[in-house]
């Protein structure tokens, strides 16, 4: 199935929760959705007979200076098609429902997104840091991040 057709299917099912379909820029098209609907949409994508998106490639968190974004790359092993789902959250309250229930890959990927960008996944069973040490401060991939001068007495920069 092409991305445009998947968008039509989602639009008829979820209506206003699907904000737009964007294929003007170079590269892959993506579907923008409301941030609080990701779990319902994920379960629908996974279980619908004509979609069967059973494989989550990755969850990317991005810092767009004025807001944060989470990008879900989803693939169907049985039907061999891809889709990109994107959602935006404000910087002061970055909360997104977890999709851990839907794809188990999300467990570690959401922890990574929390660690590096600081998007909080509501309902995650164990949302702790994964790459940085557990007592690290700040979210390193934010654009305004400055590395600490010392960590446990070791000079960093």
């Amino acid at each position: 199935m092409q991305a445009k057709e998947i968008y039509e299917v989602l639009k008829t099912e979820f209506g206003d929760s699907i904000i737009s379909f964007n294929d003007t820029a170079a590269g892959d098209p993506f579907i923008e959705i409301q941030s609080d609907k990701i779990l319902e949409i994920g379960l629908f994508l996974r279980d619908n007979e004509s979609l069967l998106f059973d494989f989550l490639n990755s969850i990317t968190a991005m810092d767009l200076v004025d807001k944060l974004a989470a990008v879900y790359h989803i693939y169907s092993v049985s039907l061999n098609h891809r889709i990109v789902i994107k959602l935006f959250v404000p910087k002061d309250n970055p909360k997104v429902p977890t999709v851990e229930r839907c794809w188990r890959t999300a467990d570690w990927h959401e922890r990574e997104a929390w660690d590096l960008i600081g998007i909080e996944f509501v309902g995650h069973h164990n949302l702790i840091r994964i790459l940085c040490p557990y007592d690290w401060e700040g979210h390193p991939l934010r654009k305004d991040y400055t590395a600490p001068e010392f960590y446990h007495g070791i000079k960093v920069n």
Partner: protein
Amino acid sequence: MGILNRLNDPTEGGGIVLATVEDILNWGRSKSDWYLQFGLACCAIEFMAVNAAHYDLMRYGIIFRSSPRQADFLFVTGTVTLKMAERVKRLYEQLAEPRYVIAVGSCAASGGPYWEHGYHVLKGLDQIIPVDVYIPGCPPRPEAFQEGMMKLQAMINQEAIFNKRKRIAEEDAKFQNSNFTDSPSDIQIKM
């Protein structure tokens, strides 16, 4: 050294070897270096190749041990991150004296390609433990490993043994005072 040459030629020395005690001890130490098997990053793959059939590090008398208690020196092969730094330091402290450290690759020497924005990368192994030999390269070629090893053996051959313990303690104290803002006892390993 020449000790072996004299042993092989009975007409010259008559089976008698004259050398200083230090020379003989150093000769023995430099020809049986045991290292702690400890790979960190890309250089560890090159290090595996050095250990394998083509380059065969074992012919220099260098074999691996899995416990730091049995090892003479530490090959730090690759990028040391801040999460790993305290563990490397602890491994170094577990080595029995005399102990040596070889920093392999540009990451262990200075942070390598990750020096600029590496918020989680240690910029040089010598910030936490003293280093005896640096092997440059990203990763170093196997020949560079061999030369680094031979440099260390040459260093051991030149070493004075007596009163060494006292001198090392002084050097270590000097080193730790200059590089740490906290005293070592303040640093806690967080698991």
